[in-house]
Structures are given as structure tokens and as C-alpha cells.
């Protein structure tokens, strides 16, 4: 027992050190995010001085009308929507990976994005409104309903007894192909004008950002995050395997269903506003996992910050690559995401995925 007094404090102290490092990393991510958003707001086709932009943000009354409109009604919603959408998609991916025990699970790979694209195309090509209340919002509402339908299909399937996590993943992949085929069919019959609208939508873009959209995505986050946070230990426990989590008294099935439902909301809403922005839901969680591990107390905020930072930085990139133009952001996330995705599949072995 002599070793108790000499060794015991060191492991606890080492752990406290680890916690401090993780909190600092979270702070660093948050700092970078603020910086990225500031750069994002100062960039755009209209060239303004950074200081003028900052003054417009903090003292809107002092700026001229045109600048106030550009900064407050165009750039700010875009920059903030990048944050909320990035955080939502990344959080959705993180929890999908957690509950499905699969590193490749994300809103994109499980067919939610493809379903949303199909729903949007239904509106743009055929003028079909799945929920005919507000014609002006036909495209996002269609996209949302299709994404939710896909999510609920996955959700419903996973409530059946004997359905394994692998089955859910395979069903998700099947959904991707099904909706892509259906989308191709619509495109084949589409008018030239509708076709270009569909193509542009599926590229994913933040340019249609508005404050109400920002608000809706933020509210969804505000609802989901506390619910996940309350189950932080249980969600982390699932990563020790179903048997172990069950032995700890975690209601694995119920938790999986609850999480899947929240994830559906988290993924479907942003996708319906911004179109297909692939890979954030994979890259964000993996960056957070590498930096912070999978203790949800750090992983949960980490995944959100990483996703928000990546999408915000991509937004900056989409403006900086071609001066004067804004490239569709989905193209850039895919270009950055695909090599990452491949690296993830290829680097197996004794690594946490």
C-alpha cells in the first residue's frame, strides 16, 4: 500500500493536466472561430476596409446606409449561418458516429443531404410543394420534409428489433443512391432554367442566408445541445460498446432513438437552407476527436466548434479564391473533405476512429 501515497496523486494530476489542455484547446477553437467570422464579414465583392466593417458591426448608426445593408443584411447572416450550420452538421455527424458506432456515419453519408436535394428539386423542377402552406418557402420546406422523411425512415428501421447498426448504415447508403437516381431523373426532364437552379442548389451555398434562417438553426441548436449535454456520460458510455453500456445501466436502445431523432432535426434544417454541404459532418467530429478525445464533455462542444470553424473558414476561402466572386461552398467542402475521407478509410489499425 506504500505505492498508493506516492503514485496515486500523479495519475490524478496528469488527468487534471489533460483536462486543462482540453479546455485551452476549446478556447483556442473558439478564438479561431471568432477570428474567422470577422474575416468572413470583412470579405466580399464590395471592398470595404476591415475597420469600417467592424465599426458598422459595433456601431451601425455611424455607417452609411449601403454599407449597413451589405454588412448587416448580407455578410453577417452568411457568416453567422456558416457558424450555426457548421456546428449543427458537425454535431449531427458526431452523435451519428457515436450512436451508430461507425466513423463514416454523417448526414451526408446516410442520405439526408441527398434526400433534401431531391425534395428541393421537386419544387424547382415540377413545382410540387410537399407542404403547400407557404409557396415562397417551397424549396427549403420540401428539402426539409424529404430529409426528415429519410431520417425518420432510418429512425423507424432502427426501432425494429434485431436491426443492427450495420443494417442502418447500409440502408443509409442505399438511400443516397436512391435519392441521387431520383434527382438525376428529375434533372433529365427539367427545363434549362430549372436545371441550373437545381445544380446550383445541390452545390450548397450560403448566399441565400437571412436572419430568420440563422434564427431557426440557432434555436434547433439551443434545443438539442442541452439534451445531449444531459446525456453526456451515457453517450460516451455507448462508445465502450453496447454490452458494457447496458451493464452500466444505460438504456442503449432508447438513447439511440432519442439521439437519432435530435440528429435528424440538426441535420435536416441546415441542409434545407444551404443545400448539399458535404463532409462537415464527418470532418468536424474527427478533428474534435483527434484534438479532444471522445469524452462528450469535451467532444460535444469540440465537434460544434470544429464544424463551425471549418465551414466559416471555407466560407472565407470561397470568397478569397476568386476575388469578386463567391464560389458555392459545397464544392470547397467536398474538395477538402474527400481527401480527408479517403485518409480516414485508409489509416486503420490501432487507432481510435
Amino acid at each position, binding site marked *: 500500500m506504500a505505492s498508493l501515497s506516492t503514485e496515486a496523486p500523479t*495519475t490524478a494530476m496528469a*488527468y487534471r493536466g489533460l483536462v486543462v489542455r482540453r479546455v485551452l484547446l476549446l478556447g483556442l477553437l473558439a478564438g479561431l472561430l471568432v477570428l474567422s467570422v470577422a474575416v468572413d464579414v470583412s470579405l466580399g465583392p464590395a471592398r470595404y476596409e476591415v475597420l469600417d466593417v467592424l465599426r458598422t458591426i459595433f456601431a451601425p448608426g455611424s455607417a452609411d446606409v449601403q454599407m449597413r445593408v451589405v454588412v448587416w443584411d448580407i455578410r453577417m447572416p452568411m457568416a453567422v449561418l456558416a457558424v450555426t450550420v457548421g456546428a449543427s452538421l458537425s454535431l449531427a455527424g458526431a452523435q451519428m458516429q457515436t450512436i451508430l458506432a461507425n466513423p463514416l456515419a454523417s448526414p451526408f453519408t446516410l442520405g439526408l443531404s441527398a434526400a433534401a436535394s431531391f425534395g428541393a428539386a421537386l419544387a424547382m423542377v415540377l413545382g410540387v410543394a410537399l407542404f403547400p402552406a407557404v409557396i415562397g418557402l417551397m424549396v427549403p420546406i420540401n428539402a426539409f420534409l424529404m430529409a426528415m422523411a429519410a431520417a425518420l425512415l432510418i429512425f423507424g428501421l432502427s426501432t425494429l428489433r434485431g436491426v443492427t447498426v450495420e443494417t442502418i448504415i447500409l440502408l443509409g447508403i442505399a438511400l443516397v443512391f436512391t435519392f441521387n437516381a431520383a434527382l438525376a431523373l428529375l434533372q433529365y426532364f427539367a427545363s434549362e432554367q430549372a436545371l441550373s437552379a437545381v445544380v446550383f442548389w445541390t452545390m450548397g451555398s450560403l448566399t441565400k442566408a437571412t436572419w430568420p434562417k440563422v434564427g431557426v438553426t440557432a434555436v434547433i441548436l439551443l434545443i438539442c445541445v442541452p439534451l445531449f449535454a444531459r446525456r453526456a456520460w451515457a453517450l460516451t458510455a455507448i462508445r465502450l460498446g453496447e454490452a458494457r453500456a447496458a451493464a452500466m445501466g444505460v438504456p442503449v436502445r432508447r438513447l439511440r432513438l432519442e439521439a437519432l431523432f435530435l440528429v435528424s432535426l440538426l441535420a435536416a434544417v441546415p441542409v434545407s437552407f444551404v443545400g448539399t454541404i458535404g463532409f462537415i459532418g464527418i470532418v468536424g467530429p474527427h478533428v474534435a476527436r483527434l484534438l479532444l478525445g471522445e469524452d462528450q464533455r469535451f467532444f460535444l462542444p469540440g465537434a460544434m466548434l470544429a464544424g463551425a470553424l471549418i465551414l466559416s473558414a471555407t466560407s472565407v476561402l470561397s470568397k478569397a479564391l476568386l476575388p469578386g466572386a463567391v464560389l458555392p461552398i459545397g464544392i470547397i467542402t467536398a474538395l477538402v473533405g474527400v481527401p480527408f475521407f479517403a485518409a480516414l478509410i485508409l489509416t486503420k489499425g490501432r487507432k481510435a476512429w
Partner: protein
Amino acid sequence: MVTLELDQVGARYGRRAILQDASTPPISGGALTALVGPNAAGKSTLFRRVAGQLRGAGSVRLTGAEQSDLRYMPQDTGMNAALTVYESIILALKQGGGGWRLSASELAAVDHVLVRLGVTALADRQLPELSGGQRQVVSIAQTLVGRPGVVLMDEPTSALDLYRQYEVLEALRSYAEETGAVMVLALHDLNQVMRCCTTTIALFEGRILATGPTLDVLRPDLIRRLYGIDSRVEHCSRGCPMMIVDGPTSRVRSVA
């Protein structure tokens, strides 16, 4: 002192009864109890039933401990999470609930169990980097960290080398002695059972054939019935009873 008693306990998966009329006299804590039986005898099912994961007939009676003091270590635990050994044991201590803050006493409990099992050096290693044997010891640490009064372990030594097996079983025995906990271990190595476990439960085709002092239970006729193996007991140079396997019993035995 904790005791565990089974009274006509049953469990079924769908229509198939895996466990029937399983009864034991009160099993007292403070020492190791073995659960032996061939593959698919229902050992894991018995554990899951006692742990409350499965419902079924009969009753499980605990005295001196609550159901919440019971910890069940399943055979396979996931070790591909991006968690350090230390974090995984904190997680086990939290049992999937509770607040985000960790108290000093919780950290002390983690330190204590690491020392007890001799794995302080692994504390900051990532789970996926561990070897099979290290994973098993970490899994045991996860099970013991909350100082449970009833412990059910499914094959806790199957991945360990010869020396580690004795070391771990010794650590488990000293834990039982110190806390008075009931510790039931499903084991396949009957020599380990003879050496370390005072009581043995023999399970065969979902029924308990015998419960009692290990040497009384593990007699050649019962071994023949359980495993279809002819054996005898001799003593090693240090006086420990050892089971010598002579070979399979001649009659044909169905695997199912």
C-alpha cells in the same frame, strides 16, 4: 458481508429458455466464486439475469448490498473509443449518469483501482493502443472502480498470460476479502478455479447442477458430465490441487 442467493431463476430469449430453475444456497462474499460450465451453458445469460438486464422467473436475493452495488463485466467491451484508460475508468465510475464535475474522491477512486491492479503506467494511454491483455485488465478496473458489493465477471482472465492470470485473480481475491463483496467469475480454466475460488457453481444446459465448495463440485464424474472429459485431481509440488485431463470420454457427445 454480502450474500447472493438465486431462487428458481429463469431467463429466455424469445421462446427459447436459456436458464431454468437456477437455484443456489446463499453465496457469501469475501472470497471468489467460480461459475463453470461448457460453452453455451448459459453463463452469460445467468449473469445478465442477475444483473437485471434480462427478466425472467424466480428471484435474485441480495443481502448486505443493493442492486445498484452490482457490477457486471461483459465478455467483450469496446476499446476503440478515443478515450484514455483514465477517462474510461472515470466513465465507468459515472455509470452513464451524473454531473459534469468530478470530485477529488472520484479521482482518488480511479487512482486507487489503477494501483490495485498494477496498471498506473497505462493511465494516459489511449484505449485502442492497448494489447488484448491490457484491455482485459482495464476492463476489470472499470468494473471495480465504484467499489461494488456484487461483481459478476465474464471470463476476466481469458486474454492474460500465465503470470498475469494469477496476479489478477489474486487482486480480485484481495478485493473480495477487503470489501466482503460477492464475486462470481465465469472461468474456463478449472485449475485456476481450484486454486483461487472457494465456491463453485456448475451450470449445464441452463440448469445449475451443483453449488458448493470447489473441490466438492469439481469431481471427475461432474467434469465428465459437463465437458465429456475424463480427469483426475492431483496436487502440485506446492500442494495445490490440479486437474489432470486424461482425454475425452469415449462415448460420443453432441456439441449442440
